[in-house]
């Protein structure tokens, strides 16, 4: 592990690529407001598939590989679910509180704010992975970055849909999602400067991020999908949900190919 200016610059550059990928939600500007309204439930379905896929296919197995103990990872994931439950309680309390005392109606659903928080933690974890892989080998760093970008793009598209559904305007949704993605750089710099602490922090950050994703998808997004119960919605949302999971599984295959190079 040797930190040089080149390694530092490459890691920051790779983190910026991931932040750029978060702007993939810009496609919503090509859609008319009516079409966006029609598409949003399907984007939420994509977000559910991708978030659950990310938690169960990437984050938890990675945490088990690092931790070595399934029961400890499950416990940490449960703690993650609990932390996000408390966070949502706090967000809802603030939501009600601001309505009572300022008289200003906050139209943003707590789900959207939770999604932003979960995304920020997840991106911080991605930054740690990028920084750590560049410290080991720059080529490994580049392949890791490609793998992260591959799973980031569908997730960011789904997230923008979930944020629009949560009450943000399309512009705000893309912009706030981008701000949250900047934690990738924080994570990478944190790892480059304090690699030992960052490596060990992954043991609890990975399952906590997984717990957050499971909580947001299961408690906030899936009930939102049940609000639309027509046959086209049933078929469309089910297919897109499955596509989200399938995409995250296919990223595993891509990761294996990239790492084998």
């Amino acid at each position, binding site marked *: 592990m040797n930190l040089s*200016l*080149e390694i530092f*610059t*490459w890691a*920051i*550059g790779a983190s*910026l*690529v991931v*932040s*750029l990928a978060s*702007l993939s939600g*810009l496609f919503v500007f090509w859609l008319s407001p009516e079409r966006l309204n029609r598409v949003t439930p399907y984007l939420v379905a994509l977000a559910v598939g991708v978030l659950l896929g990310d938690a169960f296919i990437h984050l938890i197995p990675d945490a088990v590989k690092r931790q070595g103990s399934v029961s400890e990872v499950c416990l940490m994931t449960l703690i993650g679910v609990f932390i996000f439950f408390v966070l949502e309680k706090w967000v809802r309390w603030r939501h009600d509180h601001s309505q009572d005392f300022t008289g200003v109606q906050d139209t943003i659903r707590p789900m959207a704010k939770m999604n932003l928080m979960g995304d920020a933690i997840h991106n911080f974890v991605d930054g740690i992975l990028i920084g750590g892989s560049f410290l080991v080998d*720059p*080529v490994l760093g580049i392949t890791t970055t490609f793998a992260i970008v591959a799973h980031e793009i569908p997730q960011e598209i789904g997230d923008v849909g979930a944020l629009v559904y949560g009450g943000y305007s399309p*512009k705000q949704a*893309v*912009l706030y999602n*981008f701000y949250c993605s900047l934690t990738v750089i924080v994570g990478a710099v944190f790892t480059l400067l304090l690699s030992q602490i960052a490596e060990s922090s992954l043991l609890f950050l990975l399952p906590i991020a997984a717990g957050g994703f499971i909580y947001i998808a299961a408690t906030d997004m899936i009930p939102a999908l049940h609000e639309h119960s027509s046959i086209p919605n049933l078929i469309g949302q089910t297919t897109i949900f499955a596509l989200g999971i399938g995409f995250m599984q296919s990223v595993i295959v891509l990761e294996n190919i990239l790492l084998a190079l």
Partner: protein
Amino acid sequence: MNNLDTCLHILGIELLAIFGLVWLLLDEQPIKRMLSNVFMVLLGLMLAHAVTHLLPNAIARFIYSSHHPFYSKKT
């Protein structure tokens, strides 16, 4: 991989792309103006670097590419 110039140029291009896209999304005029100033400064720096370093290097490589001593000095 080990060329710091290449790293910095990639970083600069990424930053320019990010500033450009974020500029489109912002509504507040003062922040937009500040971002466009930063964009122009960064673009200026990259162009200045390209004119003073990359262009002379490319011309020298083109002129001396068939010149044996050029290679022997580099290696």
